């Protein structure tokens, strides 16, 4: 009985190598820095990881579908700018938030529709989005940072439930919801089928293009949620907000083990990837690592973790 439990655990870890890796990283920093293993610090890490984390949820969905979205950072910036800018121009807080969410979803819808209608690779279309949407933000803000007028807006992130901030709770709930969405709904499972073998999915009568549009819309919507949470936390809207975050998002998702080529992955893997990135960053800062060294280490971590993945997958394959 004990043996089977061990076996099940090792098998799960083999398929979700990132959690084993995260565990090692946590142990390392626990010994390396006395400040690391405290509830306060860990709660902080979780909150900080939530922004990239929520972007990563949408990215995971799109990637399982076999596509990629490079515009998430720019959509996040739109949502940051709109939620603060609209408030300042006299709309209520919640009206502004709703409009920001709506615009995120619409930009995602636009991405998805262009990909579905033109048949152009999503990498290209969203690369256009990355530049063009960022341009929109500059036009809207005039190139300057907008500062929120009603400071009650910045008090929302201070809501805590035990050690969990509202930001972290929203992030974890979204992970839970989308994990369920992927495993238990028709749309979620069909995303795997499309990413795995698009031709087979089409031949089976799955409406491939509709899936692409829906998943990009969800991805844009999630980017907007992340943007709103960020705007509440910062109280300002920088036109450069979320720059190169799309890269960190992709890194987190791939680190988790979701395949760039589609058809394989899960939200739990992505959660592991997001947390690993956040923990490494936090740990290095606690150890007073210079910023440029931090980047070198992060790059090495990415390659190391993916090496681990390759080692494990080749092992499990041999066992078959």
């Amino acid at each position, binding site marked *: 009985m004990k043996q089977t439990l061990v076996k099940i655990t090792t098998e799960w870890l083999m398929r979700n190598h990132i959690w084993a890796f995260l565990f090692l990283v946590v142990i390392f920093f626990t010994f390396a820095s006395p400040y690391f293993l405290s509830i306060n610090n860990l709660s902080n890490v979780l909150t900080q990881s939530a922004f990239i984390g929520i972007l990563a949820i949408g990215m995971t969905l799109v990637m399982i579908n076999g596509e990629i979205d490079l515009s998430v950072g720019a959509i996040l910036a739109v949502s940051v700018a709109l939620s603060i800018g609209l408030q300042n121009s006299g709309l209520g807080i919640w009206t502004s938030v709703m409009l920001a969410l709506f615009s995120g979803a619409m930009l995602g819808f636009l991405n998805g529709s262009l990909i579905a209608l033109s048949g152009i690779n999503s990498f290209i279309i969203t690369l256009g989005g990355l530049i063009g949407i960022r341009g929109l933000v500059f036009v809207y803000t005039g190139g300057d940072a907008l500062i929120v007028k009603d400071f009650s807006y910045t008090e929302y992130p201070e809501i805590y439930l035990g050690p969990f901030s509202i930001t972290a709770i929203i992030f974890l709930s979204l992970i839970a919801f989308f994990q369920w969405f992927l495993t238990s*709904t028709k749309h979620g499972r069909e995303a795997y089928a499309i990413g*795995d*073998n698009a*031709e087979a999915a089409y*031949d*089976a*009568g799955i409406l491939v293009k509709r899936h692409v549009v829906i998943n990009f819309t969800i991805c844009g919507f999630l980017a907007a949620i992340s943007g709103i949470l960020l705007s509440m936390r910062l109280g300002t809207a920088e036109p450069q907000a979320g720059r190169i975050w799309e890269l960190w998002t992709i890194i987190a998702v791939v680190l988790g083990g979701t395949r760039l080529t589609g058809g394989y992955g899960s939200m739990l893997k992505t959660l592991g990837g997001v947390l690993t990135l956040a923990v490494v960053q936090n740990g290095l800062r606690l150890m007073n690592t210079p910023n440029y060294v931090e980047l070198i280490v992060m790059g090495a971590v990415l390659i190391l973790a993916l090496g681990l993945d390759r080692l494990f997958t080749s092992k499990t394959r041999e066992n*078959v």
Partner: protein
Amino acid sequence: MSEVKNVLSLHGISKFFPGVKALDNVSFDIRPGEVHALVGENGAGKSTLMKILAGLYNPDQGNIIHQDKHVKIRNPLEARTRGILLIHQELSLSPELSVAENIYLGAWPTNFFGVLKKRKLNKDSLIALSAMGCDFGPKVRVGSLSIAKRQMVEIARAQAFNANVVIFDEPTASLTDTEKEQLFNTIRELKARDVGIVYISHKMDEIFEIADRITVLRDGTVQGTVHTKDTNINLITKMMIGRELNTFFTRANSEIGSEVLRVEKLCRKGEFENVSFSIKSGEVLGLYGLIGAGRSEVAETIFGVRKADSGKIAWMEKEINFPTPRQAIDMGLCLAPESRKEQGLVLNMSGKNNVTLPHLVKYSNYTVMDWRRELATFEKYREVLDIKTTGADQEVVQLSGGNQQKFVLAKWLCNEPDLLILDEPTRGIDVGSKSAIHALIAGLAEQGLAVIVISSEMPEVLGVSHRILTMSEGRLNGEFSGMEMTESNLINAVSQHLEQTA
């Protein structure tokens, strides 16, 4: 016999592609409970016709009558809801999904909110699987199943969707003989349930075994539909290619010279063991065995793709070990691999570039390509091998299987090798190109080349070889030459060993 009702019939179907008339006024019908074979050379229009039935193409002219109603099959979903199911040669399954999810792909049961009813999905799939006599459950990941079992998953769709027409496209291309028998039993069961079956294949013996009627296509037109019992292979072949093939096989009349390659007790764990043989110049050596017997693995090990665990390889009577294919190629040993599209060619590259790809050093001056020399080589082999292509720059992906295979051969012949290993040289190519390739093999041997032909097609091995080795389950278990080379000897050799190990 009284007039039988058709489950599906096509009348005057035409389909045009830019510059080509793929189908010209084709009429075709399928009766319930019959196997109707569709044959023709590559490019005759079989796949176009099949894709029209499956809703992947729409015809430009003509009409389709399904169960006494005029219908239009606009997309794959429509075909499936009408009970028309296509089973692809390259299976259309998602390896990461479960068996049940694959069976009902595109038609999963859900509640009002789109949440999957997994229990119902698995239960229904189990019913379909057990009706087919499958020994695996609905929850297994498809990626972990063998090719034959994956095919069963596709056929289980016929059961699950209550299909009335099932189209098989080259279903036995990657099956062993036992698996083929299982497939045929399944087809007979479908037949007994009054399902109409379209069977597309290049393999004549299979068609004569399973089909009730045969329709022959040539250049997009129907050459005729005949009852299997009223015809024979020669007549069908004649209809297919429009001329009679007198000699299917040509055996080289060559002088056997000195030893080129000797293999002694070659072993690779889990793939093959104790493989020993030798081949002399001018000789055509057949290596017969089913797919999975370890034949390709032996060839790849000699060629330097895989590493042997133990054993010796002697090249021109000197012991040698090729660390990578590069050294083998330089020494004059070439391998035309089993899968043309994955290993043999770079599909999106032109014919000319494919031919010179392994020998770029010879076609360049200090790494700068000499395109004149390249072009000259290309033109030479285009003529020698009679390759039909629009020009040096045409991408090989646009060519038929037979012409693609000729490019694979050209690629190695321009290296002027001493030994050529051909792994399934005529798989999936039409009869005309097949005999051209067989004649070519004979010609090469007569020029003093040693050729190893690996094949699971018995007539091919028997037809072209001077000597035949049989292989099963990783061991060589028979050697035949001269009058001993008969079908029954080969079958006995291969199956004997299977029984011993069983």
